């Protein structure tokens, strides 16, 4: 594709203290955010967390109640959507049903009076590998094909920022996986900033360089997929991204580079760098695959009972009850070290301090759990 950008000043997308109120309801609450130019950024959160409202404000489909939005040095807060050099891939695609695929993709180019529409559209069609469908109407295409056309229709305009609103939500699992890889490839190829809104944590982790986890109109935590998964800062993030075991405890000492936490008479160690709070009341967290069915480690719980077991191919997932009212999830890799336990067996659990994290114990221990399948 030729370089026919509407304006030349590309740059980082900045949201500065942006809020959006609908009557008494606060959809987005004093949100500040910088998306670096050319990155693949995901806004992840459960339905109603304000992620789509944020996206619509960037697109110009909603006006913020407060705050400013800018790209590079240009303030676009009150700019009409048709003047912004931002394009959107809508949920359910919103293709024009009365136009052919070719005309759908050419729509934005025609509005802007671009000269060589034919070759631009063709290269966009080639990018999404749909060149053979140019003369069809949208309703003659499958969901996955429509999805690609929606991407092509937006990307052909070479926007500074491409917004994707749950673009894969309507596709089945297999197609979704394929499109995730595809979108990632397209982003790398065109180098445009992608902002991807999704409630699917796996999708966000697979595709995005940076993920912002949103909850109730605020950003809970922002970072790479690894950061968010290995070192969550709140119970919401810990529960929302993958599964997590949280144990309520109290910090009894902070010495050197480690903290000691006691819970139900047992003591656990956690590196101070992985303690996300100054509070002494904490949730001690460890991911299921980090737990081992052994009793030799520093952090261990003895006399646990297996209450459930399910074989899922690459691993066996156990539900294990601690001597007090606490159920822990354990994933054991299916290799030679397999224990092959049965329901009712007594086991011990242990894990390394460096896989432990401590979160502020003031909130809800179940925040963010089982929210991701709502939509």
């Amino acid at each position: 594709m030729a370089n026919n950008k509407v304006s030349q000043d590309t740059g980082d997308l900045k949201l500065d203290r942006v809020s959006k109120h609908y009557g008494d309801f606060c959809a987005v609450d004093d949100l500040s955010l910088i998306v670096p130019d050319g990155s693949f950024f995901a806004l992840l959160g459960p339905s109603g967390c304000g992620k789509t409202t944020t996206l619509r404000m960037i697109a110009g489909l909603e006006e913020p109640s407060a705050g400013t939005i800018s790209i590079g040095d240009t303030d676009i807060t009150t700019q009409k959507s048709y003047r912004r050099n931002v394009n959107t891939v809508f949920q359910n695609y919103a293709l024009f049903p009365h136009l052919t695929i070719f005309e759908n993709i050419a729509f934005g180019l025609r509005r802007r009076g671009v000269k060589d529409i034919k070759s631009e559209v063709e290269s966009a069609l080639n990018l999404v590998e749909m060149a053979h469908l140019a003369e069809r109407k949208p309703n003659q295409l499958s969901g996955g094909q429509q999805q690609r056309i929606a991407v092509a229709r937006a990307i052909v305009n070479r926007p500074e920022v491409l917004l994707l609103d749950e673009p894969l939500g309507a596709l089945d699992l297999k197609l979704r996986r394929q499109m995730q890889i595809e979108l990632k490839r397209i982003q790398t190829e065109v180098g445009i900033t992608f902002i991807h809104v999704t409630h699917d944590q796996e999708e966000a982790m697979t595709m995005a360089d940076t993920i912002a986890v949103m909850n109730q109109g605020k950003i809970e935590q922002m970072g790479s997929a690894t950061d968010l998964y290995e070192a969550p800062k709140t119970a919401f993030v810990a529960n929302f991204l993958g599964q997590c075991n949280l144990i309520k405890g109290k910090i009894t000492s902070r010495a050197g580079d480690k903290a000691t936490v006691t819970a139900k008479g047992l003591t656990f160690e956690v590196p101070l760098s992985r303690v996300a709070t100054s509070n002494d009341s904490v949730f001690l967290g460890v991911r299921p695959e980090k737990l081992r069915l052994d009793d030799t480690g520093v952090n261990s719980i003895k006399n646990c009972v297996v209450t459930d077991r399910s074989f899922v191919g690459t691993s066996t997932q156990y539900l294990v009850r601690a001597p007090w009212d606490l159920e822990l999830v354990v994933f054991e890799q299916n290799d030679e070290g397999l224990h092959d336990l049965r329901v009712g067996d007594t086991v011990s659990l242990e894990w390394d301090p460096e896989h432990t994290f401590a979160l502020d114990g003031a909130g809800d221990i179940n925040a963010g759990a089982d929210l991701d399948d709502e939509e």
Partner: protein
Amino acid sequence: MAFLHAVSTGKSATKSVLKSRSLTPYLLLAPGLIWLVTFFIIPIFSLGSTSTMVRPEGAQIGVYVQELRFANYVDAFLANQDQYIRSFVYAGLATILALLIAYPLAYAIAFKSGKYRNILLVLVIAPFFTSFLLRTIAWTQILADSGPVVSAIKVLPFIDDLFRINNTSTAVVIGLAYNFLPFMTLPLYASLERIDPRTLEAAGDLYANGLTTFRKVTLPLSMPGLVAGTLLTFIPAAGDYVNAAILGNPGTKMIGNVIESRFFAVVDYPTAAALSFTLMATILILVTVYIRRSGTDELV
């Protein structure tokens, strides 16, 4: 053996189900077909045969014999071409007027009405709770020489003191537009309401301003409703005689008035029948050309 038996009875059972199922569509069609044959097909043949009849010399009023005189059509048309052309002009003007009123109305109900949508839709069809005749007569009051509309216009400078609307062609067109307005509004509403608002947002996102979005997306997507609405207004308006009779004057007579007086006042059945057929044929041709040109069959 028992298994085979079961299979064969199963087969015959399916067969009888299929048989009764294949009858169902015809049974469902029967009432409508009988109705159409009795009240449309037979009358239209009867009308067709009347149109070529001739009144024998010295026969009583209303007695005609079949002579296959197709020249009846030419005579009827030549004698009434003014009213004939006027009918289509009035119907066309009324259709345009109704469209100009109904499109913004339907658009507002479809996209901007929120919780008042159902109330507004009821208001659109509310006039049907009163008789067509009464509503038309009511317009003679609204447009009366001393009525609100005429008085208000007379306030303007350069308006003649003799200015009036009642009993003019303007009144007839207003009456036609008013009476068929719901037939324009409802199909338009139905097709506008089906438009996914996100396609309009997508147009804005793709650099189309409000007007361009309307021209390139909203209007093309509402074409099925627009075509249906204009047809449902134009066809009955072209054949209407009530509005011209109540709101017009002898100089605003439409073809419907001529047919009515030929049938009931003059008792000249062949001329009335010939005019009816000509009217039907003309509408049919106009509609066919219109649908072809608007290309609605290509729309979803």
